């Protein structure tokens, strides 16, 4: 393999894929990036066996070929060359040479054939989706995913496609977030896949680009998204996601509406004196007033009063303040509206807009 490329042309795709390279990898080749040079294109591939990123750049290739090189070393060399530098890469056998001006680097290679690239999907369904709403679906729910739960299927995001809508659902067992975007006819049959946490994070980054839409492909074991020269593939979690609809309250007896930003600020202040482990705050709802209080094991106390629209009976409930702030943080409406039934039942927050979101938060015992 022999090619010549500008420093920025190589650095950009390298930066795009390097997120998939684990610092602590189990197989030496997972620390490498695969470079495949065809007639007029160079593709770079990195993987940790769970997610794979492939970036392509159009260049002139002198001699086609493929090789794997230590990803971080190549990235660091490239990053520290002058911006306008031309880089020549020559790979032949066990060593590859990276040359630029008077700099010359000889890197250890591993055979391209040993690189565990995912390759083509099998019997994949492909659909073109609008980028912005899809990103919103993820951004507005992903925070509710479990971290390292034994129920491994919760350590990911449920993506549900049906003929009328696309939906995402995440839950850690204490709270649940679901968001849907109406889209007719994208698919004929309903289906569900669970995207692992790491895949969700990479997908969020990927969808931060400026393109209008992107290509989504799904097969039995993978999700693949292609956008602007970058291709992302994630393995799917093999498991059955719980029946989430049954934990979403069908109705609530009491409604509370409050200025979202005022509520956020009050909760942030109160949380300073909440118990560090459980992060509990007490909400006391009385007509037209919401009292928020918190205390910690040192007996320090915080109390906040907010004017609200609330006409129900007096209700006192405890919540993990982090769960409430997470929901408030992803909403955009000026007014925050939540529904309650009783002190031991979940609270339901609904929000409209381009995507329709529902949040269920279980309370804490007082």
């Amino acid at each position: 393999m022999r090619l010549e490329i500008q420093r920025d042309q190589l650095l950009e795709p390298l930066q795009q894929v390097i997120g998939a390279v684990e610092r602590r990898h189990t197989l030496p080749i997972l620390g490498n990036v695969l470079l495949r040079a065809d007639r007029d294109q160079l593709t770079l591939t990195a993987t940790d066996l769970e997610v794979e990123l492939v970036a392509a750049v159009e260049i002139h290739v002198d001699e086609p070929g493929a090789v794997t090189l230590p990803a971080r070393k190549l990235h660091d060399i490239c990053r520290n060359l002058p911006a306008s530098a031309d880089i020549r890469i020559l790979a032949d056998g066990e060593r590859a040479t990276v040359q630029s001006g008077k700099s010359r680097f000889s890197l250890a290679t591993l055979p391209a054939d040993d690189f565990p690239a995912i390759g083509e999907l099998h019997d994949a369904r492909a659909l073109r989706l609008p980028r912005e709403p899809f990103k919103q679906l993820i951004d507005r729910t992903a925070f509710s995913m479990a971290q390292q739960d034994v129920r491994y299927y919760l350590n990911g995001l449920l993506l549900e496609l049906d003929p009328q809508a696309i939906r995402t659902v995440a839950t850690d067992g204490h709270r649940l977030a679901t968001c849907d975007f109406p889209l007719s006819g994208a698919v004929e049959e309903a289906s569900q896949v669970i995207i692992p946490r790491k895949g969700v994070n990479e997908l969020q980054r990927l969808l931060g680009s400026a393109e209008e839409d992107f290509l989504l492909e799904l097969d039995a074991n993978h999700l693949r998204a292609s956008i602007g020269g970058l291709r992302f593939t994630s393995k799917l979690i093999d498991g059955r996601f719980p029946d989430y609809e049954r934990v979403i309250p069908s109705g609530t007896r009491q409604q509370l509406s409050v200025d979202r930003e005022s509520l956020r600020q009050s909760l942030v202040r109160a949380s300073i004196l909440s118990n560090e482990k459980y992060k509990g705050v007490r909400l006391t709802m009385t007509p037209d007033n919401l009292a928020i209080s918190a205390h910690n094991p040192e007996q320090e106390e915080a109390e906040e009063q907010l004017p609200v629209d609330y006409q129900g009976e007096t209700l006192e409930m405890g919540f993990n303040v982090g769960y409430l702030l997470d929901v408030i943080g992803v909403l955009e409406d000026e007014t925050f509206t939540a529904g309650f039934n009783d002190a031991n039942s979940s609270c339901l927050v609904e929000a409209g807009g381009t995507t329709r979101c529902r949040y269920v938060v279980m309370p804490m015992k007082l």
Partner: protein
Amino acid sequence: MIDADALRKIIHIDMDAFYASVEQRDDPGLRGRPVIVGGNPQGRGVVAAASYEAREYGIRSAMPAARAVRLCPHAVFLRPRFDVYREVSRQIHEIFAEFTDRIEPLSLDEAYLDVTGSEHCQGSATLMAGEIKHRVRSATGLVASAGVSYNKFLAKLASDADKPDGLHVIRPEQAEAFVADLPIGAFHGVGSATEAKMKRFDIHTGRDLRRHSLAQLTDWFGKAGQHYYNVARGIDPRPVRTSRVRKSLGHETTFPRDLADPRRMVEALERLAEKVARDLARRELAGRTVTLKVKYADFRLVTRSQTFDRPLATGTELAACMPPLLARTEADTTPVRLLGITVSALEPHTPENAGPQLSLELL
């Protein structure tokens, strides 16, 4: 030389051929016959206990049951009835508790008692040991051996000295002579590997051991050298630990036939997970680290573990960790003979301290 140790009074109680004796007690037809309690002799079971009649044929605990059958084909083989043994264990512990609250159980049928300062029997540990033996026999119909001395190591040797139905005392002034004649393999902390090593250095008895300096023993055996130096002189400062702090809890099973189908393995692990969960619940514990143990058909042993952000306690939770852990082994291509689950990073766990946060009812 023995200083503060001499002031302690330690009793070691050990039930004689415990499981086998319980079986002979409950079925008079078994009395006087060789009885073996343990695993399946047609498979890979091992002997858990052998009656004294069976021991005459050379049958010992931990011996493969199949070998026991060859040694004594007419022996009666029984599967253990742990519920019954646990009940007896509870009864004998109640008796111990009347004499002291410093009790260190070693197993269902064995315990150290520190009776230093106890007012019973005019403070005589020997009389207390006799009284305990008598009370155990009248309450359970079973025979115990007792050893009395001034530390755990000697008390245990003493209980072994006159088995069955023994009551042996090693007084401080007798310790030296007792230890000197003891074969090296009988010392606390000397297993078969160390025994072989000792013999290479021409150490066969306590007397031989005592000839070597602390520096020499440390040179040969590292940190354990100090312990060997001590026990050769009848010194053992280990206290009787009232409640041993458990660091991990687990179960494992060796299959009658190697398992090759990963689905069968997952099913076996689900059963093990339930057992571990029951033990955790009994002790009101939960653990954050789960370890899967796999022994392949070729006896290679591997473990895979994962640590979670909150403690696990239920069988469902433990079973849910297994497929990803099993996927990190060669179980899909290599048959396995043994699977085990261990939970560590233990912490107290009761429904009350599960925290105030309520959960969604996810199904």
